């Protein structure tokens, strides 16, 4: 399997006034093509900072992040933006969308920014994605006219509209109810099964249990990892959750 992401001795320090806050301390891990990895840890352990530094949104203080052979920190700002646009997808805890655009326009906006394919092809692909996610009927709605679950699925559509090599998700189900959460996770799993690597941050054991591997972060460092293997269906979920819970207890969760 090809390594899509390699993180080496990653450090991130924020300086607030005279105070220095070392959020990430020599974090190391890697991900293979098509893998789905969940990052878990207590609040303030550095999960989100890890996600944002790895995805090039934030600059590391030290260490390196190699994404498909490209060292992210060494790329120029515009190039990083291009990589994020075409090779990475992002899902956030909140369903962030541009309020003056319809659901459909929000989804196709990143696609229109790229030069691959015609607008017609992009529109067709967006419709196909929306159909798959079951939200095609709200395509022309304003973003405040749809439910949270629909909006989060629209956010997933937007994140994969440019067929990224990797999807970053920061608590993608954090603000959803149980049913919506299950539906959204099913969509993320489907994207992953279609070949897109996924790195997600979550507090939810049920969500993490669907990942191939779980990283436990504590005090800015990766303290351990648990390989659960490919998620094959609902029937195995309970067992995966139990395994994960036991491991998390060992980790000090």
């Amino acid at each position, binding site marked *: 399997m090809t390594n899509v992401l390699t993180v080496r001795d990653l450090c991130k320090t924020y300086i607030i006034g005279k105070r220095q806050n070392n959020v990430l301390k020599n974090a190391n891990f890697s991900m293979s093509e098509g893998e789905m990895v969940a990052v878990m840890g207590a609040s303030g352990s550095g999960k989100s900072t890890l996600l*944002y530094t790895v995805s090039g*949104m*934030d600059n590391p203080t030290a260490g390196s992040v190699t994404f498909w052979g490209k060292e992210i920190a060494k790329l120029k*700002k*515009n190039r990083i*933006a*291009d*990589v*994020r*646009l*075409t090779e*990475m997808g*992002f899902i*956030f805890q*909140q369903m*962030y*969308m*541009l*309020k*003056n*655009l*319809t659901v*459909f*326009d929000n989804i*196709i*906006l*990143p696609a*229109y*920014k790229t030069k691959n394919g015609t*607008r017609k092809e992009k*529109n067709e692909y*967006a419709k196909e994605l929306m159909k798959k996610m079951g939200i095609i009927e709200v395509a*022309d709605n*304003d973003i*405040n*006219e749809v439910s949270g679950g629909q909006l989060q699925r629209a956010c997933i559509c*937007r*994140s994969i509209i*440019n067929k990224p090599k990797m999807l970053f998700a920061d608590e993608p189900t954090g603000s959803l109810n149980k049913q919506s959460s299950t539906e959204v996770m099913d969509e993320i799993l489907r994207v992953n099964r279609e070949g897109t690597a996924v790195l997600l941050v979550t507090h939810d054991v049920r969500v993490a249990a669907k990942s191939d591997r779980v990283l436990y972060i504590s005090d800015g460092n990766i303290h351990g990892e648990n390989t659960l293997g490919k998620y094959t269906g609902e029937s195995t979920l309970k067992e995966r959750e139990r395994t994960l819970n036991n491991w998390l207890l060992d980790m000090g969760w």
Partner: protein
Amino acid sequence: MKSIMFFSILRKDLKRKKSMNIILLLFITLCAMFTASSVSNLIVVTGAVEFYTEKSRLTDFFIFKSDNDTEQFEEWLSSLSYVDDFEKDIGIIVNDENFINDDYFTLMGVCALTTRPERYGFPLGDDNNPIPVLSGGEIALSRFDARRSELKIGDEITIRVGDRERTFTLTYTTKDIMYGSPYVDTKRLIISDEDYDYFMATSGEQPVLYLAYSISTAYPQTVHRELQKQGFIVQMTGDRAMIEQTLTLEMVLASLLVVIGVVLIIIAFAILRFTIVFTLQEDYREIGIMKAIGLKNSAIKNIYIVKYFAISLVAATGGTIISIPFGTMMLESVQDNMAIQSDGSMGINIICGVVIIGLVLIFCRLSSGSVDKFTAIQAIRGGSTGERFKKKRFFHLNRRKSIPTVFYMAFNSILSAAKSYTVLIITFVLGTLLIIMPLNALNTLKGDDVIYLFGVVKSDVYIVSPDTTVEADIKKAGELEQLYKENGIELELNTVLLIFPWLYTDDMDSGIQMLGLQSSVYETDMNKNYTGGTPPVLPNEIAVTNLAMDRLGVVIGDTVSVKIGTDISDYIITASMQSMNNMGISMLFSKAADIDAPHTSTMTLQGNFINRTGFETTEELIKQMTEITPDYQIKTAGQWLDQYIGSSIEIIEDMKFLVLFVVLFINGLITILLIRTFVTRERGEISLMKNIGFNNRFLKLWQIIRIIIVLFVSVTLGTLLSNPLNPVISRYTFGIMGAPQMPLNVVAFEVYFLYPMLLLFGTAAAAIFGSVAVNKIDFREINNVE
């Protein structure tokens, strides 16, 4: 305890929302600056004429005459019971020949060497006080003449009178209410008593004297009427109103300042309202949360009122201080030729500053009604009450096949929040109008048609002969035609006669002194002057300006009496016209009218070339003609006109650049501030777009393009609006000069392209600068998405 919490919230607000508070501070500063400077200038300009006439001690009535019957004249003047006092200033008449180094010294009309008056009609210095009595070797002349002759303080002027010659140093350039206007042909050069006596003692040809009587009287019109009944030969009479009329140009500029002032105040208040409403709307979340934790509406409103008071106090103080140099800069062009009370207006500025603080609080109080509307639910639901929002989108990105994404985003932002752009549109439209209006006035003054309003026909060349008698000119015309022909230049010369008749209806007492013109060619060529009726053809037909007809209460078809010298004849008014001659009080005789030569003079000889063979340009022909007749001044139409309005053009040109600078400054400042305001409001969305891979270039372009779209729409709107406003400008600017129906010369390239482009590029540059704020937004601000 309660007050501690109150000030704690306030302190946190000021600190945390630094950028919005700074924007608020800057906008209120701008508002105070514009308002204070404009109101102060409005007051100064309104009382400017009175201040100038008082400072100069302008006389109630004046009479210019030559030195004949002087004793009898003064006896008559002294006998008038209603004349309180009079002062006689004697001047030595000089012309080009008297100036030894006259390469750069431009003369027109009558020029007199005189001493500083003792009681009336003082020339004023830079400090708006009368210049002191000059010492030997010093000379002073009006700023207008100095500028026209390209003379500056310290330059030397050598003058010869008879057999006596003296070199003077230009010591003062003055604001001369009596002689300093481009519309007054009579000029004066002030010298010392000693130098005056030196010239008068010449043993050569005795100088021709010129007497100017300044008369103090409560009844100037009675003096005028009595003078008409006497047989004295006078060259010119006038009262304060007439002199005040010569300040036309300054008043046109002052009116322009008033317009600029009013526009700036409108812009200021639009900004003020926008900023307060905008900042309050931005705070719905905080307001909702404060309500959620139990704060009452009144307590929340008090927080805002105290906050706005603190900000407006600082801003209004700053704005008031800046308003003083800003106002002075705006007044500079008017002050150049006119005494203006520009000091001591600090009080007005301070009052304006206080008014702005009051208005901010009133606006705040009125706008804080929205505090009542914002609910805790809105804060929790990110601005929504849970009900459906009104649809904001007007067109869909996916249905626009060709529009680039960044353009779509820009259009969509504008159409989704059109109200937010109102202040920008108002500023840009008014700014465009402010530039185009003086531009049209300036181009009209520079245009070909203006020459008709000065009583001459447009010709290839204008020849001013050293001899000004009519007979000489008419005789010269034939001789000159022949002389030039012999030297290979074929041209046809003619002249316009000047007559100074009295025009009246039944009663001579109600008559007015006119400037009459007679030309052999004007019936066809001067059609542009006529505003009604048919041009005079028969000997007893005349055309009279609308301004003079209004004063006399006559209309086309009426018969009026015309007194020329001692002859009185009846004439029929066949046409109305407009003219800038004699401030619009003039008339035209038909070419058939028989007017006695002793009562006429000439303005210029005018010539049209019959054959230009061998010469490529008019300038080449003029050069050749000057070599043939070196004593004659030969000018092109432009050069001839320049001696009348050249200075006006310069001043309006300066004003145009000042307005352009002010408008670009305002556009730029407001653009930068508004972009920063929008970026602050949209920081969440910008951050989101950065997160999903949009680069800074795209995001900045998005900001810039929407400003350019708004600017483009506003400039187009402003340019279109300028068209219906043209007649208004014409009426108020050229109307004062005597040509209210002057068709404005709209130079399409400048009005529709050059200046709109300057505005577009200038403001786009500010937009580019303002959009840099996008760079500072980072990925964490995504949490601000509503």
